[in-house]
């Protein structure tokens, strides 16, 4: 009888352990499939006030010069009103804003790439930008539904060396590949773009045209080519961990915050030094332009250690 009891207990124990092991394995498998932004990706922060204070005035001026941005805006004639809005709003704050179109339009000027394939078009635009960069060392790729605050981008990358490979924005993971999401804007340093140029010559690893049945988005294609070149995606965020590059438009983010943080909607929603918002309608862009570059409460001043001046010949900022 005792040996029966013992066996029974041993069996129970083993059964329990077996069940635990199974469930642990099961949950482990589950979590690795649905991982989102985990501890593996890198974070990029803007310099702190103390870091900036330590720099001399001449060094600050040097950095301000180094951080000039070449904007690559990918447009199409069928969304002319978005194109026109970007032209009339935030792109004026780029040091050089160049519009790249899939086909020519009589209404607005652009570099006509004459290319319908999205990835091939992006490649051509990047090559053209690299060749025409002049002395600009930072590149920002945007869609016409993206609104970007270039001064905040400059602040983010101020102390970063463009001769290092930087590839940043809203970094997300798809399986094993970490890539920068397109509609929230893609930032590339000169070195990253240079390495990409070399990679473009490698038709094996980074082909111009894929004839696969299922095509990867061009932002993922870009990430893959960059990965082979040793350049990895990094996430731009502020010190509170809030993403500075946003795929959603600001109204949707506020609506979400009204649900998630009803007592602290604005603080719980969007960062002060946001760089981009995606999915913006033309009217929303005009409002954001006014909200960023004009509207403010009297008597609240920020003595930032750098001054960016308004662009010439502009009446809405």
């Amino acid at each position: 009888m005792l040996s029966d009891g013992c066996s029974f207990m041993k069996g129970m124990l083993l059964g329990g352990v077996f069940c635990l092991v199974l469930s642990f394995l099961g949950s482990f498998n589950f979590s690795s499939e649905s991982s989102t932004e985990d501890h593996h990706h890198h974070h990029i922060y803007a310099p702190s006030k103390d870091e900036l204070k330590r720099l001399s005035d001449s060094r600050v001026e040097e950095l301000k010069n180094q951080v000039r941005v070449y904007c690559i805006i990918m447009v199409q004639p069928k969304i002319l009103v978005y194109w026109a809005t970007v032209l009339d709003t935030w792109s004026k704050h780029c040091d050089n804003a160049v519009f790249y179109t899939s086909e020519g339009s009589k209404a607005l000027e652009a570099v006509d790439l004459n290319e319908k394939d999205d990835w091939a078009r992006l490649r051509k635009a990047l090559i053209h930008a690299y060749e025409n960069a002049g002395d600009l060392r930072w590149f920002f790729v945007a869609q016409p539904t993206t609104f970007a605050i270039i001064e905040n981008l400059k602040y983010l990358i101020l102390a970063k060396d463009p001769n290092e490979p930087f590839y940043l924005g809203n970094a997300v993971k798809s399986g094993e590949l970490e890539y920068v999401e397109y509609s929230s804007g893609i930032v590339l340093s000169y070195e990253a773009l240079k390495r990409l140029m070399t990679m473009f010559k490698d038709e094996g690893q980074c082909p111009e045209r894929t004839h696969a049945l299922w095509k990867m988005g061009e932002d993922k294609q870009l990430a893959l080519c960059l990965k082979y070149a040793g350049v990895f995606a990094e996430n731009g965020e502020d010190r509170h961990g809030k993403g500075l590059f946003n795929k959603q438009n600001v109204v949707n983010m506020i609506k979400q915050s009204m649900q998630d943080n009803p007592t602290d909607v604005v603080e719980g929603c969007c960062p002060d030094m946001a760089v981009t918002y995606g999915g913006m309608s033309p009217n929303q862009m005009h409002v954001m332009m006014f909200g960023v570059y004009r509207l403010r409460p009297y008597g609240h001043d920020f003595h930032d250690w750098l001054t960016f001046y308004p662009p010439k010949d502009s009446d809405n900022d």
Partner: protein
Amino acid sequence: MKTLGPRISFYAGFVVGTFTLYVFLRQLWFEKTLPMHQVTTLARIQDYQQQLEEEKKMWKKEGSALFNLEHPHHIGEDSRMADELYKKVRILCWVMTGPKNLETKTRHAKYTWSRHCNIVVFMSSVDDPDFPTVGLGTKEGRDQLYWKTIRAYHYAYEHYADEADWFLKADDDTYVIVDNLRWILANHTPEEPIYFGRRFKPYTKQGYMSGGAGYVLSKEALRRFVEGFKSKQCTHTTSVEDLAMGQCMEKVGVLAGDSRDSFHRETFHPFVLEQHLTAKFPKSFWYWSYCYYPISEGPNCCSDMSISFHYVDAVGMYLMEYYTYHLRAFGYRYRYQPPTPPAHLPSSENCSTDSKGTHLFSTPTDQQGCDQCPLQKKNIAFSKAQ
């Protein structure tokens, strides 16, 4: 039987063990993922408690008014000028609302712009001690608007005349940038019989102020309003609240002020920002014939120091708060540099005066930013600091 026993017992034990632990783990997992309604009620209770806690920090409730304890500040900002004006240009904001709107509209105004007023009072037809709202004893409806206005201003005068210098009326769908209102008002004194808002021209000699865009009366203007009703100079002439107010103001000799900035751009707006910036109003629209001053469409519609927008919905309130107080471009030097208000403002008795007897601001180079006591006449320093 005896030889089979241990083995069967073992297998039986194994099965029982597996089953027991499976049930145990499932229970744990089940508890982690509670059914949605349980989670939301729990979250709602927590939210409500959190809300009460935060409200205690923000306001001191005195009767039905909320006295602002914490003038909102941002980390890293220099708000000395705003703080100075907060003390010197005290504004009582009263919000015209009703019981049906409290949860859908008014609470959003309460959590956004009303935190920047010195005192805020929510005026309704019914008393609500929790929100809180004052019950004016009227009914609800468009025809009650002027009755509400008359009683609201009388209430403000009777209870808070000494606690504020200027008295603002706003709707529950008006967004007000109170700091910019202080900037305009700092050029005047509460002893002047004057009121400001978006000036309309019809029906009156000097014009009247749009109700929806909000208007603000000086203490003297309020005193004359109340006196006007006592002496029957002013009566309930029409239920068109803003026009009726304008008619009374004209009767008692209160001036309709010009609230435009130094570039002649409007500060009080009867529509949302998006419409003023982008909409092309048809020429037959009433707006064109109502505005006292010439209308600008596009970016010149609105001052950088805009004060109000109307027809702002719940999301819009938070969006305006975000654009005004949070989102900015690092290091950007604004094109429009608003002129600093003059120094001759009434200040507290503790301050000394110079030989001319004028009270002065303290300079930005003060060690502690002593807000009350002046040291030198250096107003220019403030505009440089911008």
